[in-house]
């Protein structure tokens, strides 16, 4: 029985509510405008489309959670994936619900504001400071711009702030209760989410782990607590802050891989086994191929390296030039290359050196590890051959050719030994897709290898294949996999050509486990190197601090209406000042404490330290790594670091107010200053808001007036 009367007592922090409403208003109003593709939406949009179509893709810029959140918004809005994301500024058709596409990042961006408010309270500063921090975040033009479009920074910032807030909530909670534990769990979950959105989240996560371990270390040193209690606490923290995020991270990939089950544009980056697990694509081609490669099999051989590009062993009716540009000679035999596209010239026939026939016996005689074979090129009937002639581009290695007998005392050396490198047993059978083989040249014991160097024009810029003596250890460019495979049935050359042109068929299902897929995908994401080139709006980390640069996100097709990523210059300056002030203060305090002067009571000192750990530490871990990175960077990479600084400034003002200023007059002056600064923050927010929201449209002169810095690129049409 419920006790009657039923009474609910609620305590509502009106400031919090007000701030949240304002945040929602600044982030969500007119979210559908402009109804055109804005900046990186063109990048994330294609992934959203692929999610809608459940087509597999690989994006090395970050783990899948961020993309999935964007896709969720699209899914709720009924987006069907039928939009071509080809250029910035393209108008969305009316079928695309732009509002829904942008809703989730905007919500996350709006929620950051109350979170900052709460976080400041958890750092044990007053409501006024909390309000200040919330206002700084609220009126930060760059954060508003970044939240209002289909981009991921606001989501990342939201999860990072949530993680810190819930951890501090846990830490400050007085007794060990279940709610306390659930805050810890929430913190772990948000860490997992933050890392899942962008790899940048790892740094904040590590900082949080650092803070948590410092707290735990203190707990271990607390001798009033029983050993058992300490043990339980440590285990609890370990589980929530380490195990849970890792599991979650894997879970994002699990969801990702189970949603994307169709083959797509990035198939070729993955191993054949991975591709075969996707619907369509390779699996359609390879469905039901015979598993075991036998004498007489017709195969295409794919190199295991995906650098510089996935390709297949290839030959064509063209010979090596008699002399290269460098003046070196060649054998003038038929070229062997590696070709990155499907082609009928990629087909090879596996032949038994001892017999003439090119068809598979019944029953087939499978090839085992260590067997010696010849490889006959299907269309030109040349044998794969190698000899002691320097290769065209890599003169230290042997040339590989399709053998032509020119009667120049250059005998055919066309025997190759099959060496299955991922074999389980010594007599393992060569399997389609699953086996990775090395082809060892019998005469010279060199190994068939993709050197990866593009040939000159005479080789049609295809990639060079060489045979190299094996000194080096395992290298994926030495491995070859049979991808398409069928048992040859025609002995006559003409019929065989017809056979090679016809598609393969039959059915079998080959599954690889989730873990294998996860590891492969993760590895590919980390090692996939994209051509790093400068972008028109890319910038260096040192330019961010003073906001030397901006990014034009969108420009109206005909008018001067435009959206820029430009921060609020005033709050940006305040942030930098407070960073400097904190460091200065901390140095002075530390030196004086070391000499025995305690300027602050212990409680205030702890508060000051934890403020520094979270805010200055957060800024450091989100900024310094960029200095060491060799990537194309943009101003928006600085936004997470900036949020920490906005947290810092009001707290620092409060600290100065309570601890540094003794007389009431100074304190009043300080308050005045703070309110004046807030007012100017608001004014500059208003000044730049046309560039933030894209409306109202400004005249060229007004735009010129907004160009506060010489280096900003603001576009205007002269009429």
């Amino acid at each position, binding site marked *: 029985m419920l006790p009657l009367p039923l009474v609910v007592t609620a305590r509502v922090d009106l400031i919090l509510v007000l701030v949240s409403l304002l945040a929602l208003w600044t982030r969500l109003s007119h979210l559908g405008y402009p109804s055109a593709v804005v900046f990186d939406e063109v990048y994330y949009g294609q992934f959203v489309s692929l999610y809608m179509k459940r087509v597999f893709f690989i994006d090395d810029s970050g783990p899948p959670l961020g993309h999935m959140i964007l896709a969720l918004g699209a899914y709720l809005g009924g987006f069907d994936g039928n939009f071509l994301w080809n250029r910035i500024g393209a108008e969305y058709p009316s079928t695309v619900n732009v509002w829904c596409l942008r809703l989730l990042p905007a919500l996350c961006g709006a929620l950051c504001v109350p979170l900052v408010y709460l976080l400041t309270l958890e750092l044990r500063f007053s409501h006024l400071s909390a309000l200040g921090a919330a206002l700084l975040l609220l009126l930060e033009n760059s954060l508003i711009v970044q939240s209002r479009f289909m981009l991921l920074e606001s989501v990342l910032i939201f999860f990072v702030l949530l993680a810190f807030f819930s951890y501090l909530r846990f830490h400050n909670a007085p007794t060990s209760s279940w709610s306390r534990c659930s805050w810890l769990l929430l913190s772990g979950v948000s860490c997992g989410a933050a890392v899942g959105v962008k790899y940048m989240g790892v740094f904040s996560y590590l900082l949080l782990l650092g803070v948590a371990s410092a707290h735990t*270390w203190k707990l*271990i*040193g607390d*001798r009033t607590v029983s*050993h058992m209690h*300490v043990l339980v606490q440590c285990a609890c923290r370990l589980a929530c802050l380490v195990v849970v995020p890792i599991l979650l991270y894997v879970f994002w990939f699990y969801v990702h891989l189970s949603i994307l089950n169709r083959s797509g544009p990035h198939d070729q980056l993955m191993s054949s086994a991975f591709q075969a697990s996707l619907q369509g694509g390779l699996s359609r081609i390879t469905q039901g191929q015979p598993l075991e490669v036998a004498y007489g099999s017709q195969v295409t051989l794919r190199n295991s390296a995906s650098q*510089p590009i996935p390709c297949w062993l290839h030959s064509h009716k063209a010979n090596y030039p008699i002399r290269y540009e460098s003046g070196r000679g060649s054998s003038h035999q038929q070229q062997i290359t590696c070709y990155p596209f499907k082609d009928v010239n990629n087909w090879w026939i596996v032949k038994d050196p001892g017999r003439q026939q090119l068809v598979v016996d019944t029953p087939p005689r499978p090839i085992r590890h260590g067997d010696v074979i010849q490889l006959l090129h299907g269309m030109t009937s040349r044998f794969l051959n190698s000899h002691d002639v320097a290769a065209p581009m*890599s003169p230290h290695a042997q040339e590989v050719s399709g053998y032509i007998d020119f009667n120049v005392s250059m005998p055919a050396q066309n025997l190759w030994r099959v060496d299955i490198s991922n074999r389980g047993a010594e007599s393992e059978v060569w399997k389609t897709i699953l086996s990775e083989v090395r082809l060892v040249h019998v005469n010279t014991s060199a190994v068939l290898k993709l*050197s*990866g*160097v593009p040939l000159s024009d005479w080789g049609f810029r295809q990639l060079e294949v060489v045979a190299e003596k094996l*000194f*080096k*250890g*395992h290298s994926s460019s030495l491995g070859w996999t049979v991808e398409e495979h069928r048992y040859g049935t025609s002995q006559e050359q003409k019929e065989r050509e017809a056979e090679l042109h016809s598609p393969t068929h039959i059915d079998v299902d080959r599954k690889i486990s989730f873990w294998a897929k996860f590891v492969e995908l993760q590895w590919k994401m980390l090692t996939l190197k994209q051509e790093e*080139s*400068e*972008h*028109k709006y*890319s910038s260096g980390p040192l330019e961010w601090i003073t906001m030397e640069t901006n990014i034009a996100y969108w420009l109206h097709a005909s008018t001067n209406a435009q959206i820029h990523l430009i921060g609020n210059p005033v709050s940006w300056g305040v942030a930098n000042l407070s960073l400097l002030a904190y460091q200065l203060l901390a140095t002075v305090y530390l*030196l004086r404490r*070391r*000499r*025995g002067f305690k300027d602050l009571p212990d409680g205030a000192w702890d508060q000051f330290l934890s403020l520094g750990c979270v805010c200055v530490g957060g800024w450091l871990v989100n900024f310094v790594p960029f200095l*060491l990175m*060799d990537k194309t960077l943009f101003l928006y990479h600085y936004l997470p670091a900036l949020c920490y600084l906005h947290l810092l400034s009001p707290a620092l003002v409060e600290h100065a107010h309570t601890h540094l200023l003794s007389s009431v007059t100074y304190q009043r002056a300080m308050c005045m200053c703070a309110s004046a600064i807030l007012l100017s923050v608001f004014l500059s927010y208003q000044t730049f808001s046309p560039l933030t929201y894209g409306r109202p449209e400004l005249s060229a002169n007004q735009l010129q007036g907004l160009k506060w810095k010489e280096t900003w690129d603001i576009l205007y049409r002269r009429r």
Partner: protein
Amino acid sequence: MANAECVSKWNSQRDASSLRSRKTVPTSQKTSHSKCTAVPENRDCQKRAEDDAQPSNGSSAQLSVELNDKTPSKVQLMLVAGLSLCTRLYRITQPPHVCWDETHFGKMGSYYINRTFFFDVHPPLGKMLIGLAGYMTGYDGSFPFSKPGDKYEQHNYWGMRGFCALLGSFLPVFAYLIVLELSQSHGAALIAATLLIFDTGCITISQYILLDPILMFFIMAAVLSMVKFNQQRHRPFSAFWWLWLLLIGVNLAGALGVKFVGLFVILLVGLNTIWDLWRLLGDLSLSLVDVAKHFAARVIGLILLPLFLYVAIFAVHFVVLNKSGPGDGFFSSAFQSRLMGNNLHNASMPEYLAYGSTITVKNLRIAGGYLHSHWHLYPEGVGARQQQVTAYLHKDYNNLWLVHKQHNDSQSGTPDLVRHGDIIRLEHKETTRNLHSHLHEAPLTKKHFQVTGYGINGTGDKNDLWQVEVCGGRKGDLVKVLRSKVRFLHQATGCVLYSSGKTLPKWGWEQVEVTCSPYLKETPSSQWNIEDHINPKLPNISLSVLKPNFLEILLESHIVMLRGNSGLKPKDNEMNSKPWHWPLNYQGLRFSGVNETEYRVYLLGNPVIWWLNLTTLGSFVIMVAVASISDQRGFTLGPKRKKHSRVLMRGGGLLLLGWLLHYVPFYTMGRILYYHHYFPAMLFNTMLTGVTLDILFKSADLLLHPPYPAWLQRTGHMVLLATVVFSFYLFHPLSYGMTGPLAHEAGSPMAGLKWMDSWEF
């Protein structure tokens, strides 16, 4: 030196005793007395010893062990030194041909002997010492060192190799002393020294003309002086305190003067010093003036002195190398004019730029190249498919340009001079294309426009026109060759010719990008000077170029070196060694020889030692974790354990920090990395192994009752020694060279020893 030894020895005793909560034993004091009497300054020594003698309430069991440890110290040290000299100098002249990087460093040594200017990415000290060693032993600098495998024949190369080996053989000795100082245990010191003596990698890398033995010598010497200096902390400002402080400074300068990797040991010393100063600051018995004195002393010893020495090294470098050589093009025109034999040395050419002249144009940014073009087009997808224009650091025919008026003009008589504000055309002499720009993105700096070679025989379009602007000049001013800073403004787009300093990919032959920048700020990147100026119709006038002062030269050569270093990017096809390979001993380096008939030397650490190092590193971390948690939790430990955990945390922590500082930064480096970069870190790891294993052995009494722990310790030492020596016996052909079949065939000296597929012997 005897004096120093006595004091330091005494100190080490005193410290050990104070560590054991002053449970000192009379006998140990006697030894210190007896040793000190030989020294004139023994009063101090005795007084201190007496100080210590008073509160002694020690346990005698420990004492005898310690005593046993102390007596053989000198013998052990001699043994270590002798063995390490033997192992390093054995077959030093084999193979009698150029091995691996000897081709660079030997060559540079020769340059010092010939006084020819060259450019290298490393600071000069190492090569200067090599050159000096060669000079002293009668090498005349005439061997060309052109490629690995060249036979030395009659040339005297043993001196340079011997010098490197000599420095290399100091490493085990230093390791012994450092570990002894840190752990106060002869066992630990001996373990560390033994591991280094019998490591094939350390032997190999010390035996050739390389910078690494010299670098490691200075690193270890700096660490040793730092440790010794730390011991002196109870007697600040004494003579030995100053001595060790200054020695740190000297060695730091040496380390940095050999390779920039020396920065890591500077960082180690810096952190140690900061920690030390922090401790002093917290010592409230010291007045602020005292603290300031300490601070000033360290500034002098650890900053000013090394800086001075480092600069002095460069001064010697510039004074010695005064002849023009292969490195000229990397430096500015002004710099080149210092070098005898360079065409700018006492240059003589027409003074003012004129139409019809043939010129070279050099960018004014430091290590900016000459404006260059060649018969190659920009590849598809990179702007317009027109001829490449780049900046090139070497002197070359393709750097020559012709100066033309806007419209082709036939000239007779004295040519007109180019003036500020004139519109000119620059025609590339070899390919007859005009310098051209247009509104396409530049290849790398996307904010700028592309610069190409366009037209044929000097006929192009209006995008070939550039306005000459002399910086700080007015309309009508003449352009002074060599001395004017000139900018070229593109007529049609208004951008300025710019060298971004970014290296183009392979299609651009890894030359430097040239763009046209729409940002008109005056920076050295957009300023150029006319370096060569050939015009037969004008009289040549002897020009004195403003000679740069020493600081400018120093700065310039550093920026050139840094550029060079970051320019060493891994090539696509080269096997690139990754930092995580190194501690695993995953793959070595081939020093000499490939196939069966050649004399092969392969740089690879003794796998037994390296893997032992790695496992010990793991157990060190565990031991420290256990020790610190039990300390934090407040468990009471016996005095012996307390001492052990202090040695682990202080000494071990210092070594671990050294290892981290010499290893982790490589992960962030974009430049090409090699296996031998790990060797300094490996030294720290080995010393850490010494400390950790010794304590591990000594902690056997946690599990066993006496007397078994002592036995265990002794057997442990014996087994360790035997394994190390035996593995050295197995792997010694790697260092001392081998011929015959490769390892995977029977009958090879290394048969059956190819434990990892990735080893290439």
